[in-house]
């Protein structure tokens, strides 16, 4: 049985990880998608605002997506996401960081435009091993409703 709208209640949903991010992964992602010196070159990175080699913010987002997939989206009747309300990069992702992801459900409701589906909004915080928050996200996903619940609203 996959998770449906009825399985998501406002409040703390779960903590996922740890997920270690290697230097090789950081360099490979940056080379393909974000080849700025602060993500690729140790010396240039030291001189940057981030004061040392850091992973691309889009790499961190993509890893958070994977952690959400492994944590719960993979067993959720997910229909995709319309977007991200807000995303904040709070501190740099460093080589060998061990990430954990805390997920809270902020809202779970029936979709207004497609009442046979639901919208679940998540607030996620990714932290390093020291507990320092690196990234914060607020994002809705579209999920299926339980068959009997969806039928009642038709």
């Amino acid at each position: 049985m996959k998770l449906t709208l009825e399985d998501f209640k406002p409040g703390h949903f779960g903590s996922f990880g740890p997920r270690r991010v290697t230097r090789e992964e950081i360099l490979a992602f940056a080379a393909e998608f974000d080849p700025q010196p602060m993500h690729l070159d140790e010396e240039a990175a030291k001189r940057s605002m981030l004061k040392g080699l850091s992973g691309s913010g889009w790499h961190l987002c993509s890893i958070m997506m994977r952690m959400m997939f492994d944590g719960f989206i993979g067993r959720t009747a997910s229909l995709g996401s319309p977007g991200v309300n807000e995303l904040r990069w709070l501190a740099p992702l460093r080589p060998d960081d061990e990430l954990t992801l805390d997920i809270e459900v902020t809202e779970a409701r029936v979709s207004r435009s497609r009442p046979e589906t639901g919208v679940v909004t998540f607030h996620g915080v990714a932290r390093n091993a020291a507990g320092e928050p690196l990234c914060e996200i607020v994002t809705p996903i579209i999920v299926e409703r339980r068959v009997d619940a969806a039928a009642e609203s038709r």
Partner: protein
Amino acid sequence: MRFFEDLVVGQRRELGSFTFTAELIKKFAVQFDPQRFHLDEEEGRNSLFGGLAASGWHVGSVCMKLLVADGQRQAAEAAARGEKVAIWGPSPGFRELRWIRPVLAGDTISFASELESLRTSEKRPEWGIAQARNSGTNQRGEPVFSLLATAFVPRRNTA
């Protein structure tokens, strides 16, 4: 790249285009977003997307790729004119990201960036803060992607 003082609200840059092949879509999805509609054509056709669809994070990452390439082109042009090259700082985040339409296998997305606001930073007087609406449009002219990004931009005279 340009300095804060060179930027004007409303300026628009065409960043170039990128074709999302089935192979690239699956390669990204296997690593970061292995939902069924990002991995398999048949599953994609049976989903709300109507075909094998790129992960939204793949679309955002490609937009970043083209932004960086555009910045590098501008830096090379500035260097060729003998001007000082601005090195942009990191981004504190973005808002209002919308995956407006699916990006399906074979789609070619053209990206653009338009400056929406400029302000100076009180905490960091050597930096300005720029907000830009970055967007993607498919080969049929339909908008597929949009976000409001923020970045630190160096100021000319304090750098």
